[in-house]
């Protein structure tokens, strides 16, 4: 190869180094400039708005909401379309509830009593997974009853089931289309990306606008939230099927349908089961949050308890959610690995046949018994154990509060005064055009003109909602939580990425952490830090950390051996290796983990509106409860969406930029 050819990439490399250097200078100058002008002009054009006052836009939304309310039963769009959907979904959900959770007619118990359900679900767990999971399901379900939340748990389960069934009915066929037709996939991907970025919260309001508050809305909102994972993973599952086997099938004269049925779907099964797992977990997470729009179940207990600051009760119900989450996750995960085992032909199906028959008979017997005898229909007892747990939790929290009040207070105060307040003051007191301009410049530096345009639209949109000041309050919390999340992500990510042992120990915990619905993270922190934005921030950090850590760890572990070896060969010590070799090589992972961290944090900070975090989340919640604030709640939802897009796009651009530099 000629010398001239070799020097070309070198030149490019140099150019990119210069560029990166420049970006660093730009960003530094931008921050300095922003702080200077924000402080200089503080108090000007901060666009504050009292909770009770409305802008014309918010009043207009109120009117829209009123109009919908008034025309719900007369306008054909509603009577022939929206209401039909609502009624059918309602019927569907109520059907499932009648089956497992709500007592029907004169009967004291639902169609299937607790014993029937426990045995049936354990049996199902055995058939789709294995005996260990079946036992886990049995114990888990009984403990839900012992907690005193049998009916609430079954309500949550019923809603989750209904939503999952609908989500799969829609998501899997669409996913198959996306897997088969690249053009279709290209069209829907932006929507999926968008859906993924949105905090769970913002789905609630628009849906209630059309479908009213209640189980139907809760199911729809949950379904909408659960469709993207079902769709996406189904498409991925089909992509994963080796093209060579599809081509072979076609070469033998298969029709498209035959290739799909006989070749692609059987091979995609395992990944599709993983998709079902994700769908169920997303649904459970959403169903608990849908308690805000009156979805029955455990979530409602948590919300009520949180609102009245009843730590014990919220802990008790939170525990129930955790149990339910673990059961559903374990069962579906084990089902996926069972499909795996079947694919690798480790299990013979014949062997299990007798056990299955026996189990089936026992299940039918249990179903009958639960129908006939009251003790097997309604879960006996009054949840004494549950109240005990609630009391213990209260006691412990009280004890901690009594003994460590100084510690928790000083943590709260320290962080509040040292970090949150300065940032919040800076942002809320800065003129909107200064902050907005800073965002646009940041977008320009990181992503170019197109991103700057998107950012301008987002900034102006937020101003348009009339909630600029509240958005800045939320942003402050998000930034603080995100900084902490990224720091944790780096520390733990480096640790896990560098050590196989650490990976083995931490990975299951991180996975478990990601499974839990957002809600339950609030509970323990509420106990420790009370109803403050600090609680919301702490919960957000804990909620977001697993995703951030995992991405970081994968990035560090993924640094090519050739690079690390070169570092070692150059005589770097451990610290130098991390700082000078591994972290810089994992820059893309860092950017991605920042992106994910911010998305998760935003979702949680908003939920934190429930426990006094203020800002946009609080307004969304208020929108549900106070009629005259509906429009404001909607506007707040919109502001969250815009803020989400803004933060997501900018951090994505940062990630894309570091990829670009690395490939050069």
């Amino acid at each position: 190869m000629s010398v001239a050819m070799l020097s070309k990439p070198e030149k490019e490399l140099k150019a990119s180094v210069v560029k990166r250097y420049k970006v660093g200078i730009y960003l530094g100058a931008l921050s300095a400039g922003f702080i200077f002008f924000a402080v200089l002009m503080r108090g000007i054009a901060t666009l504050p708005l009292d909770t009770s006052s409305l802008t014309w836009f918010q009043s207009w939304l109120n009117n829209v909401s009123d109009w919908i309310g008034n025309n719900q039963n007369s306008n054909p769009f509603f009577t022939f379309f929206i209401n039909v959907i609502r009624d059918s979904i309602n019927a569907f959900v109520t059907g499932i509830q009648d089956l497992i959770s709500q007592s029907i007619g004169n009967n004291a118990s639902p169609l299937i009593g607790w014993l029937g359900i426990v045995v049936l679900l354990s049996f199902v767990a055995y058939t789709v997974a294995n005996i260990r999971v079946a036992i886990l399901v049995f114990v888990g379900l009984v403990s839900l009853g012992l907690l005193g939340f049998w009916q609430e748990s079954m309500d949550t389960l019923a809603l989750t089931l209904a939503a999952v069934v609908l989500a799969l009915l829609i998501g899997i066929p669409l996913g198959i289309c996306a897997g088969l037709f690249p053009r279709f996939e290209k069209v829907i991907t932006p929507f999926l990306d968008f859906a993924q970025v949105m905090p769970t919260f913002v789905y609630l309001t628009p849906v209630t606008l059309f479908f009213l508050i209640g189980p139907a809305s809760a199911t729809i909102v949950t379904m909408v939230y659960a469709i993207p994972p079902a769709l996406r993973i189904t498409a991925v599952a089909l992509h994963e099927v080796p093209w060579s086997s599809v081509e072979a099938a076609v070469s033998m004269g298969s029709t498209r349908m035959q290739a799909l049925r006989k070749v692609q779907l059987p091979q995609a099964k395992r990944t599709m089961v993983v998709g079902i797992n994700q769908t169920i977990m997303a649904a459970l997470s959403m169903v608990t949050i849908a308690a805000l729009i009156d979805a029955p179940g455990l979530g409602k207990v948590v919300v009520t308890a949180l609102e009245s600051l009843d730590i014990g009760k919220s802990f008790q119900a939170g525990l129930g959610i955790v149990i339910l989450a673990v059961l559903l996750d374990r069962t579906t995960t084990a089902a996926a690995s069972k499909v795996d085992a079947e694919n690798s032909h480790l299990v013979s199906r014949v062997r299990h046949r007798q056990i299955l028959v026996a189990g089936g008979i026992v299940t039918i017997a249990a179903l009958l018994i639960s129908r006939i005898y009251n003790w097997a229909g309604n879960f006996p007892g009054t949840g004494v154990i549950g109240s005990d747990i609630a009391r213990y939790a209260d006691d412990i929290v009280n004890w901690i509060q009594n003994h460590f009040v100084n510690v928790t207070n000083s943590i709260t105060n320290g962080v509040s005064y040292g970090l949150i307040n300065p940032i919040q003051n800076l942002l809320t007191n800065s003129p909107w055009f200064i902050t907005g301009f800073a965002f646009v410049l940041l977008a320009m530096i990181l992503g170019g003109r197109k991103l700057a345009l998107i950012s301008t639209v987002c900034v102006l949109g937020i101003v348009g909602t009339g909630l600029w000041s509240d958005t800045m309050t939320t942003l402050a919390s998000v930034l603080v939580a995100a900084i902490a999340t990224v720091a944790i992500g780096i520390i733990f990510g480096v640790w896990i990425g560098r050590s196989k042992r650490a990976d083995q120990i931490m990975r299951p915990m991180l996975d478990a952490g990601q499974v839990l619905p957002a809600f339950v993270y609030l509970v323990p922190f509420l106990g420790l830090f009370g109803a403050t934005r600090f609680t919301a921030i702490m919960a957000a950090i804990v909620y977001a950390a697993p995703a951030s850590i995992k991405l970081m760890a994968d990035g560090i572990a993924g640094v090519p051996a050739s690079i690390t070896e070169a570092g070692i060969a150059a005589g770097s010590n451990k610290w130098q290796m991390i700082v000078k070799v591994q972290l810089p090589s994992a820059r893309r992972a860092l950017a991605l983990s920042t992106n994910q961290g911010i998305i998760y944090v935003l979702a949680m900070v908003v939920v934190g509106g429930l426990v006094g975090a203020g800002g946009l989340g609080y307004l969304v919640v208020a929108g549900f409860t106070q009629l005259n604030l509906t429009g404001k709640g909607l506007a707040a939802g919109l502001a969250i969406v815009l803020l989400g897009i803004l933060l997501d796009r900018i951090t994505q651009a940062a990630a894309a930029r570091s990829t670009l530099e690395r490939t050069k």
Partner: protein
Amino acid sequence: MISVRHVWKVFGSNPAQIIGSPDANLSRSELRNKTGNTIAVRDVSFDVAPGEVFVVMGLSGSGKSTLVRCMTRLIEPTQGEIFFQGEDILKVDEKRLRELRKTRFSMVFQHFGLLPHRKVIDNIAYSLEINGVSKEERHHRANEVIELVGLQGYGQAYPEQLSGGMQQRVGLARALAVDPQVLFLDEPFSALDPLIRRDMQAEVIRLHHQLGKTMVFITHDLAEAVKLGDRIAIMRDGAIVQIGTPEELVAAPADDYVANFVQDFPKSQVLTLRWIARKPELNEVLTGPILPPTVTVHNSMRQIVESSVPIRVMENGHLLGVVTAQDMLSVVSGSEF
């Protein structure tokens, strides 16, 4: 049996516009840089006779796989005609195409393309299954071909439980299950180690003699091509540069590319006396032993060396020329041809 006429395949955004434009004459990389298109198959024409083994050779990326996929329309050619028993298969509809694939053509893939979730027997029976053959019947037939390729006892195994060579036998058995008229084999043995490869080649030769199938066989191994092929086509950058019998290629390569291809091949094994016989010189003795022109140099070596006078090469009582040990040595050592 098969006639390929002026077939083109251009990958890229505006394939049809390239053909016939001046751009078509650019080299691959130039075209790629200029328009982003790749000409994978360039104006290819040839015929395959019934019962013939037609080998396609060429370096990696020369378009062999694309060509063979075009022939069964797994890849849609950009332009051209392909006749199978007089029917232009590029013009037939989906249904007829599937019928041809189900009953007339079979393909064996470089990377096997087995269905991992099916047992060996169900892999082999797949095409019968989609032909609507009953389970009993198709398993019966599958067992027959399993025996044919020497996989007795492995019917109930899954592909991943077999070695590479065995997997390729499954691929071969699958292709034979429907009793096709034409077999397309795309580098079927490239992934196999030399010993298994030799076995499999013997297998194909046996099958060819036993069943008399027409085959289009792709390889980039000249030894394999010479061993199996009745005729060989050499491809470069999508175009065919030469078609001929192994002997013709070795004896008279059309250009440097082909010459390069064949230069390391032991010529004495394909060259016959016809190619090395020369006019007798004036004072040469013409009483030596007589050999026919169709014997390879390799097989006549002993006689040539042992004879003190030039060997006479005669056909139908006609003297074609003479060969001495000197002439033969220059062929074997490669200084000639």
